[in-house]
């Protein structure tokens, strides 16, 4: 068993490297002659994590080892692993990008991701540790009908994880293509194969270490960049931001965002506007709805919940959340400097010209601070940040696949199919590994199939389902005496259906008529803009010419995109749901679906009765509060 594991790990590395080196290259942010640097840095990360996986593979003997690292992870380690699991590419590159494009609103967006952990800390982490075992359905099955709980719970775990996973796979594929220029399909496969190698052989032990290593690298990279950005200002916040306000690239971006409203503003006022709210978020209710999904959804994310079963006690669970909050919050404060720094040093226009969403802000800042696109140091720093981004995707995907696989193997196969009868440990581990391969293969396929799809809303949807279905159910089964099987089943169904259903009729989908109108507007305005740019180019003023050149590039891009969009919706009148325009006006369903989820649990619990739920309440309540027997369950 051991030697075969070892051989397979070696094959895994060889396979991943072969995929990487045989890749067909397109143009990426990393220049061709420095691409080997990215691979060297990334290969170093792979080697370290694979070695850890090799060591971990020896220790994975039981289901508990595979799912929860035998409960032997310390609070500090788990804190770093939670941060590694949570700081996905979307938050690592996305928030810095948002700040570099829209200033204040980007920073405001990051706050909700941290505050979410207050909910996890106060009401979820410790009770879950005290009564749970491996998975989210374990918590629900404790006092309610086990079969019913495992079925609805596993469905919900797989649903939430699949939404999140698809977003990670597609986002990751695009990201790696933009950064290094590897083909989309190949980068999705490389991520998938690597992730499978970690999870399959090392289970939770290896997954935990991959997440820890990645989180440490991420924090180091960010700290170095922030030091370089901030040191010239003697670590003064006002001095640094004053330079951001005074930057002509930033002022030009704000002028572009405000359009006609910018006409009577001085350059200083335009720059100052970058530090004020309202450039990105136009609909406050939507913003609040998103905040609700974040603050309550994080506590219902299966891959985050699962992390609390890896620590031995409730005290360590508490400690791990506090550490995770320190690391995650500290990281978001650093992104304030990364985002504004990128806007000032690189310029919002240049960043958007490589990736419209601004995702390249961090990597480009690294390249710029190292000495620019032609310098070795600049490219080394870009290579390092790109490698960390790649590692980030692998680490997050590994956590998600492990959560899905455990729901399938532990809840559906062992719990439902075998009716919870004692299944021999080896068979349990085997089931877990088979489930991992299936989930991994499916996620690679989905990643490739969803190429070019708009998946940005899938992360928000995962949070919305977690907040509307999982969170009310987990919370109420632990804290509410009357909660029972009927309540949980109804809550899970209504919460999921409400969140998914509202999203399907929301503005997140493509509405051909709206796309056509927007594209037409761009094309109609083209001529006027062209003549303005030509006038500026002929003016002889150096600053005006520089600005006009950037504008010209942006206009070319916008026109190409508008033409592409027109082609995509040609002959179509309705969205895939058959709607001409959205029925539900908000992008985030949380503000409606979360209360609905809670109501459904209350209603279901009051309508139906379940003797088991009532009889086991004292046990659940005593256990979740005191941790009686909890620490003994895992001491081996």
């Amino acid at each position: 068993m051991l030697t075969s594991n070892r051989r397979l790990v070696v094959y895994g590395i060889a396979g991943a490297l072969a995929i990487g080196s045989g890749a067909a290259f397109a143009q990426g942010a990393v220049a061709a002659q420095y691409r080997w640097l990215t691979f060297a840095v990334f290969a170093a990360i792979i080697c370290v994590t694979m070695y850890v996986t090799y060591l971990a593979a020896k220790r994975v003997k039981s289901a508990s080892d595979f799912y929860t690292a035998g409960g032997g992870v310390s609070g500090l380690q788990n804190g770093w692993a939670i941060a590694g699991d949570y700081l996905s590419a979307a938050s690592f590159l996305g928030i810095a990008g948002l700040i570099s494009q829209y200033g204040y609103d980007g920073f405001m967006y990051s706050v909700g991701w941290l505050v979410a952990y207050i909910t996890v800390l106060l009401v979820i982490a410790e009770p879950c540790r005290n009564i749970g075992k491996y998975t989210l359905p374990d918590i629900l099955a404790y006092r309610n009908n086990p079969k019913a709980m495992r079925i609805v719970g596993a469905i919900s775990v797989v649903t939430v994880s699949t939404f999140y996973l698809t977003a990670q796979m597609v986002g990751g594929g695009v990201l790696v293509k933009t950064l290094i220029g590897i083909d989309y399909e190949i980068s999705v496969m490389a991520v998938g194969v690597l992730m499978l190698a970690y999870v399959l052989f090392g289970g939770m032990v290896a997954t935990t270490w991959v997440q820890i290593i990645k989180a440490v690298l991420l924090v180091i990279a960010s700290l170095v960049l922030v030091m370089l950005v901030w040191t010239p200002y003697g670590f003064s916040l006002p001095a640094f931001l004053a330079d951001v306000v005074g930057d002509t690239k930033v002022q030009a971006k704000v002028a572009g965002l405000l359009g006609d409203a910018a006409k009577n503003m001085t350059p200083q006022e335009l720059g100052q506007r970058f530090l004020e709210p309202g450039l990105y978020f136009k609909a406050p209710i939507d913003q609040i709805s998103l905040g609700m999904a974040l603050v309550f959804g994080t506590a219902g994310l299966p891959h985050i919940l699962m992390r609390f079963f890896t620590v031995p006690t409730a005290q360590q669970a508490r400690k791990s959340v506090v550490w995770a909050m320190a690391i995650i919050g500290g990281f978001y404060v650093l992104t304030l400097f990364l985002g504004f720094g990128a806007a000032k040093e690189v310029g919002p226009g240049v960043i958007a010209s490589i990736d419209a969403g601004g995702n390249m802000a961090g990597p480009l800042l690294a390249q710029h601070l190292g000495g620019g696109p032609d310098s070795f140091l600049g490219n080394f720093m870009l290579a390092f940040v790109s490698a960390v981004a790649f590692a980030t995707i692998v680490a997050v995907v590994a956590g998600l696949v492990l959560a899905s696989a455990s729901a399938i193997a532990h809840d559906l196969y062992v719990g439902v199919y075998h009716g919870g009868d004692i299944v021999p440990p080896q068979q349990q581990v085997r089931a877990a590994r088979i489930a991992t391969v299936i989930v991994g293969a499916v996620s690679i396929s989905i990643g490739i199939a969803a190429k070019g799809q708009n998946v940005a809303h899938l992360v928000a949807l995962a949070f919305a389902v977690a907040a509307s279905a999982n969170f009310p159910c987990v919370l109420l089964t632990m804290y509410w005496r009357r909660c029972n099987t009927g309540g949980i089943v109804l809550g899970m169904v209504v919460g999921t259906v409400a969140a998914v259903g509202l999203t399907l009729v929301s503005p997140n989908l493509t509405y051909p008529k709206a796309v056509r109108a927007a594209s037409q507007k761009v094309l109609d305005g083209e001529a006027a803009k062209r003549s303005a740019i030509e006038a500026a180019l002929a003016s002889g003023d150096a600053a005006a010419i520089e600005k006009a050149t950037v504008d010209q590039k942006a206009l070319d891009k916008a026109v190409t995109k508008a033409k592409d969009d027109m082609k995509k919706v040609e002959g179509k009148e309705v969205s895939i749901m058959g709607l001409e325009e959205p029925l539900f006006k908000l992008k985030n369903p949380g503000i409606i679906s979360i209360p609905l989820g809670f109501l459904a649990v209350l209603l279901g619990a009051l309508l139906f009765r379940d003797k088991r739920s009532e009889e086991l309440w004292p046990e659940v309540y005593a256990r979740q509060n005191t941790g009686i027997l909890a620490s003994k369950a895992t001491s081996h």
Partner: protein
Amino acid sequence: MATAPKIDWNAVIADPRFQALHRRKQGFLTGLMIFSVVFYFLLPIGAAYFQDLFKTKVWGVVNFGILFALLQFVVAWGVAIYYSRVANRDFDRMAREIAADYEKGG
């Protein structure tokens, strides 16, 4: 788990010490949770409906909005540390006393 002692859970939750722990914890957690959620939503609400306040410059070019967003981080960490201290000091001790008694088979 199979060898775990049989515990009379009804006796545990009827235990006055458990009742005391439960009362303290429930009040404390509810209060802290409500405070945290309300305080957080002041940020998006303020940014949307109190823009003049958020735009007021307080420290050079640094406006109230930026300081308030930074304060959110400080408050979140503060809540976490405060909760940990109370839990480490009081809740853990109370829970351990109860657990020790009943796990012995009492």
